[in-house]
């Protein structure tokens, strides 16, 4: 039994665990109930992959929020602000500004020119087999990294929240989360997954607004007082409210920060599980409306992470503060909830702690469901139906394969997450964004805006971005050659940065250009006019 367990057992005497456990069960029952309700209306391939394209922009805006605001955001960013002060806020800004790329350049055009997966949009004017294989590969790689991040986080988090720290309990949690996500995706398809995400977004916003209001009320709604107290209690003084505590140490860490910033802002619009959300609405206009709602919801949420983070720094003190530090910041929000509810050992504190823990749990479930569905769709629609069967399949067969794929991907994710628990969650998320920005975004943008772009350009940019992003991380201090590396007894690191984006994103664009100009293919050029008309007017778009 380590110190945090001892503290937990002594202070809470198991009261809040029972309540937390009950709320967790309620979240599970609610979401599984939604899934089975949705499964009755899932018949065609369009139902399974795209929720029948029947969601309104307003609903989809919430679902996007639910898909995007992961536990890494909710717990990770507020935790980073609680520990490193202002530097944690930089994540919030990158994650929000990124939505302008999606709004202005991607959402509407993709809705009009694609069908079920990211690859559809590229395959419109390229040779099917190479482009779909490439796009499916990067979809699966990005989704698996992101999935691992969420599941590893879930294991650590639930164990902490329920006050059990045994390896068996963590493994059981990961397996349980994995089984639930398989249930959502296999039975509920996109309809079930979307409703789970909408419910989660509402719960998350409710919880975040409630706790933020309680924090601000403690300071008579004076932000300056809140920040002043946070700076004072952090022991860092005014430096806590300025950039630089975490990333300002050396030139390398500063460049690393720029690299991270670029990957965050360019990665969002290349995340496959975000892209497929644009297919769930009937028109491009509704796709635009969904991003507008998403920007409103996500922006409000990230503004509130500032209150949560600085609130935790100001109000979580004593033993609870030590637990925040031990958890790497992940417990900042839950323990802040306990503090504003009256503190440890009080009924109010126990209720709010349980509530926020349940919100965090719902958050994890909704995100993993979206990721699993996206990978399964790509396996079934791109690899099975197009690459293997050359289009000679029925919608029913595709959906059956998608369900099997969801089962397999869920199993693989469980199998990877259990031994992968030492991986850093924030690193996995940042890597997923870097790969999305390096491999997917160049291909998508070239395809929409560059007439000459062709099959070789598309495959080279996807594989080039993918291999360079992952490869640079392998040779970075994250994997070897530093004290915090994955492998501590070897050193093959020659790339100094932890975030590969500053090199791999330009490289993805460069390879897309190089592949294009060295290929003599002309068919893709001939179909550019069609793609343009289709993407800008919706003529011939999927209904």
């Amino acid at each position, binding site marked *: 039994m380590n110190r945090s367990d001892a503290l937990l057992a002594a202070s809470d005497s198991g009261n809040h665990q029972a309540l937390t456990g009950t709320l967790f069960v309620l979240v599970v029952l609610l979401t599984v109930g939604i899934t089975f309700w949705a499964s009755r209306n899932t018949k065609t391939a369009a139902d399974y992959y795209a929720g029948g394209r029947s969601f309104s922009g307003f609903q989809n805006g919430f679902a996007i929020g639910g898909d995007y605001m992961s536990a890494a955001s909710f717990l990770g960013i507020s935790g980073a602000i609680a520990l490193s002060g*202002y530097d944690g*806020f*930089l994540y*919030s*800004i*990158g994650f*929000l*500004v990124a*939505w*302008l*790329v999606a*709004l*202005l*350049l991607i959402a509407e055009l993709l809705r009009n020119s694609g*069908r079920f997966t990211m690859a*559809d949009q590229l*395959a*419109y004017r390229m040779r*099917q087999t190479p482009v779909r294989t490439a796009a499916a590969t990067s979809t699966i790689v990005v989704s698996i990294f992101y999935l691992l991040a969420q599941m590893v986080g879930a294991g650590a988090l639930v164990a902490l929240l329920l006050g059990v720290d045994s390896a068996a309990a963590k493994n059981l949690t990961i397996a349980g989360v994995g089984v639930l996500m398989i249930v959502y995706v296999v039975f509920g398809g996109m309809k079930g997954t979307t409703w789970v995400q909408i419910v989660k977004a509402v719960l998350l916003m409710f919880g975040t607004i409630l706790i933020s209001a309680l924090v601000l009320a403690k300071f008579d709604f*004076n*932000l*300056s*007082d809140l*920040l*002043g107290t946070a*700076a004072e209690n952090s022991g860092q003084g*005014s*430096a806590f*409210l*300025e*950039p*630089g505590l975490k*990333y*300002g140490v050396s030139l390398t860490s*500063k460049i690393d*920060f*720029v690299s991270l*910033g670029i990957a965050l*802002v360019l990665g969002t619009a290349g995340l496959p599980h975000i892209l497929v959300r644009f297919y769930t609405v009937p028109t*491009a*206009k509704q796709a*635009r409306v969904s*991003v*507008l709602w998403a*920007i*409103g919801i996500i*922006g409000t949420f*990230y*503004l509130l992470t500032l209150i949560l983070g600085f609130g935790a720094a100001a109000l979580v003190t004593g033993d609870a503060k030590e637990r925040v530090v031990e958890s790497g910041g992940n417990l900042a929000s839950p323990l802040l909830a306990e503090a504003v509810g009256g503190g440890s050992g009080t009924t109010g504190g126990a209720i709010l702690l349980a509530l926020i823990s349940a919100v965090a749990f719902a958050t994890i479930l909704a995100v993993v469901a979206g990721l699993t569905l996206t990978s399964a769709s790509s396996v079934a629609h791109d690899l099975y139906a*197009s690459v293997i069967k050359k*289009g000679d399949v029925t919608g029913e067969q595709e959906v059956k394969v998608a369900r099997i794929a969801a089962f397999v991907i869920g199993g693989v994710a469980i199998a990877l997450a259990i031994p992968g628990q030492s991986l850093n969650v924030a690193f996995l998320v940042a890597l997923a964004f870097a790969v999305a920005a390096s491999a997917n975004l160049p291909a998508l943008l070239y395809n929409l805006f560059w007439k000459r772009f062709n099959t070789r350009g598309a495959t080279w940019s996807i594989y080039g971005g993918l291999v360079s992003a992952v490869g640079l991380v392998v040779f970075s201090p994250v994997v070897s050659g530093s004290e915090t590396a994955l492998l501590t007894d070897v050193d093959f690191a020659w790339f100094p940065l932890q975030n590969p984006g500053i090199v791999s994103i330009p490289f993805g664009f460069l390879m897309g250009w190089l592949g294009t100009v060295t290929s003599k293919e002309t068919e893709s050029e001939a179909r550019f*006019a*069609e793609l*343009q*008309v289709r993407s*800008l*007017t*919706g*003529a*011939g778009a999927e209904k």
Partner: protein
Amino acid sequence: MAEKLTPEVHAAYERIHDSEEFTQLRSNYLRFVVPMTVGFMLWYLLYVVCSNWAPGLMGTQVFGTINVALLFGLLQFVTTFGIAWVYARYSARAMDPIAAGLLEDFEREVGR
């Protein structure tokens, strides 16, 4: 997708592509999104660069404990919301009516 288009559908796409309305739609779209994208990317990068290399400026206290860094960060939220709002209005005015007209033409022509 890969499915071959019938000659009529292909002709409809070509005709719309060469029409004056479509040229107008495309130019209205690009005229907004290109400068706006360049603008918000530079504005965001300026923020990232200042966070790294202008600690004096960022640490300047404006009122109470509120410093330039916090206001600059909050301004990024304001500009993001603002650009989204302006784009919603612009696209409804300068893009949607043209796109709707062309879509109607297309559907009449190909008969769906």
